[in-house]
């Protein structure tokens, strides 16, 4: 009999949970409003907290929360405190789409900070366009896109990939091996690189795409050995990087044997791969934890204070942090939280923020940021140090329209 009660208890508990879930479904809890009433303004944060992308996205989410807290402490935006609503994209594009609709329409947020992968961004793009809301996308990406409802605070290809290849050319590298994960960023990036290499007179000796969750890179490494490149241009993502570099190290290869130039390895990845293995390899970003600005010292200190000493900041983390401040600047310039007003303010091209990476400005036409480009080298202490830095900022050009070789290769998407 005792067992029966226990069973009934479970039934009751489960019913309660499920009922709670369903009952709350239709209602909209409206505490803060996006336009006017109340003394708070609601914004959305949409990142993967579960699934395979959580590895990368949580750090960005943390930076965004940090920025929101800082702004609230210093008086908020237009006299209102920011209240954030957080949703989990579960590393799944269609969940991202559902959650984006929920944030915009049910929660009525003023704007959303979020996404990491290109697939999640593309999945939510229509939602933002149809509901006319604004997404702040904090990650470097493959370009070839410019939605009026998205502000891209990460690097466009001409602020990361193109300068990196130019730098390689300058350093005398000639034979490139293109290695990437099998998804849209590496494929598009490599298309750009191939066109650029042709113009620069460099040779692409191999191109290889690894499966997204590939764990064994022996065959890939064998192909690299066969192709004998003098530099590997690496667009692998997250876990692929860890396996690749660990397995390169197994074969005694260091940066002296095969130099790599990576576009998706930031401070966090260095930590999970191990600095010893990555020592001497090159990366290309706009920001490093070591970037020497006054703002950065403050940012790094605040981030570590809030989330722990062993956490590191990286380019996407910083871009997420910037996004919140840029939104604040745009809102203040517009004098309103309304999406159209904010966009009008952005259109002026004067919204800027003294970011940890240096001063960044939103380009009024394509809503990307003008930002400095830095080539970095990984050192034994696990940090990345700048070896080359552009003078001033580089104007964003997501379609690479200002590059002759890109126009000639017809890289621009169809109208």
């Amino acid at each position: 009999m005792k067992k029966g009660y226990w069973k009934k208890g479970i039934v009751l508990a489960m019913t309660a949970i499920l009922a709670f879930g369903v009952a709350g479904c239709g209602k909209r809890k409206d505490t803060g409003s996006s336009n006017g009433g109340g003394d708070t303004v609601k914004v959305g944060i949409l990142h993967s907290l579960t699934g395979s992308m959580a590895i990368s996205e949580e750090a960005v989410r943390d930076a965004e929360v940090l920025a929101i807290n800082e702004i609230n402490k210093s008086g908020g935006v237009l006299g209102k405190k920011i209240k954030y609503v957080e949703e989990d994209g579960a590393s799944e594009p269609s969940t991202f789409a559902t959650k984006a609709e929920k944030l915009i329409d049910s929660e009525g947020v003023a704007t959303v900070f979020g996404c990491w992968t290109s697939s999640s961004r593309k999945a939510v793009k229509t939602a933002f366009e149809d509901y006319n809301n604004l997404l702040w996308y904090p990650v470097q990406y493959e370009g070839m896109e410019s939605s009026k409802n998205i502000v891209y605070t990460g690097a466009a290809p001409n602020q990361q990939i193109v300068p990196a290849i130019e730098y390689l050319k300058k350093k005398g590298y000639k034979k490139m091996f293109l290695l990437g994960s099998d998804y849209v960023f590496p494929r598009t990036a490599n298309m750009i690189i191939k066109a650029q290499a042709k113009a620069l007179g460099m040779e692409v000796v191999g191109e290889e795409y690894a499966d997204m969750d590939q764990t064994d890179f022996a065959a890939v490494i064998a192909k690299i050995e066969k192709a004998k490149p003098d530099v590997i241009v690496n667009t692998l993502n997250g876990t692929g990087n860890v396996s690749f570099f660990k397995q390169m190290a197994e074969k005694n290869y260091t940066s002296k044997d095969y130099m790599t130039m990576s576009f998706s390895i930031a401070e966090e990845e260095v930590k999970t791969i191990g600095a010893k293995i990555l020592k001497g390899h090159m990366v290309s970003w706009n920001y490093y934890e070591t970037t020497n600005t006054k703002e950065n010292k403050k940012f790094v200190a605040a981030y570590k204070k809030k989330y722990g000493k062993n956490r590191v900041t990286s380019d996407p983390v910083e871009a997420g942090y910037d996004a919140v401040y840029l939104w604040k600047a745009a809102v203040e310039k517009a004098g309103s939280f309304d999406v159209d007003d904010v966009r009008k303010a952005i259109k002026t091209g004067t919204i800027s923020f003294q970011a940890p990476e240096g001063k960044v400005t939103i380009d009024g036409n394509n809503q990307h940021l003008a930002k400095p480009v830095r080539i970095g080298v990984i050192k034994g202490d696990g940090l990345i140090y700048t070896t080359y830095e552009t003078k001033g900022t580089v104007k964003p050009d997501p379609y690479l329209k200002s590059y002759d070789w890109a126009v000639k290769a017809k890289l621009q998407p169809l109208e």
Partner: protein
Amino acid sequence: MKKIKKQGSNICFLIIVILLALVPIMYQYELIEASSTVLFIGKCMAFAIVAIGLDLIWGYTGILSLGHGLYFALGGYAMAMYLKLQRTGGGITDFMHIGGLKELPLVWKPFLSLPVSIFLILFVPGILAGVIGYFIFKNRVKGVYFSIISQALTWAAYSIFIALSPYTNGNVGITDIQSVFGSIKGSMNFGNLQILFYSALILLILVYAGAKFLTGRKFGKLLIAIRDGENRTYFSGYQVSRYKTFIYVLSAILAGIAGAIFVNFNGSITPNQMTIAYSITMVIWVAVGGRGTIIGAVIGAFLINMCEYKLSSGGLVEVWQYLIGAIFCITIIFFKGGIIGIVRDHLFASGRRKKAERRELRQNS
């Protein structure tokens, strides 16, 4: 009382249908404040259809497919390809351009017309399931072996879809599309959403009625016989593999239809829909709702998805992951019949069972 018991599931479904039919009206009277909620409930209807399909093969026939996401995604892709071509006006898409294609590939051509696309939504999952089912069931691969093979098959298909990115846009999938009836997002497009919503509802009713019709007849009994004693059914002179193949194809087609509806509501389809995890999630809906009853599948699909919608945000994310895991484990271990089973055992049968218990006690003493 007896009648309620007999017709219970149909009454239950009727209530669900009425509630669903009221959803858009409730929105107009501002009882539901966001049109995105309506949109989400639309997606749930698609999930309910695939759940019915899964229930037919798992709950009734005892074939556990861990790869129904594949058929769901195939139907979805077929729909999405049509919708994408509507957007581009028949021209090539941006990802084909990046992939280096100059003109529309042959596989995309049939999707220029709606009737052909609708035919393919049914045909492609159906024929694939037919071929796979024919060989697998003829060779008498059954039980968990089938589950593992279906899982591997989905995994393989997923890889192929990613590798053929000039044709499928890799892991981004087909995005940036509107529904068959035009844009459905936002209050100004609510008319379109309404048409789509009711069309999906009608499809759900049809599928439910069809499944009820099938399972209520001798055919349904046969499916259960296959589940409970495949060899005995075989020895009774039935070509088990044919029945199995038929029901497998049918459920694949249902999954395809569901995928097509889902795309209309969701506005994109990605290979993520054909992952193993996603496929198993579908099985979870059926298990929690109650396998072996069509209504259970419907209830499960709605309940789990709505809870997830509600509970997987903010600080609740962690809790939700533990919860869904625990709910799943507990239903499987203790409540094989799922929610429907609980309702049946505790609400309707309690009187009868108590009587039986008492009788047993008397006999023992």
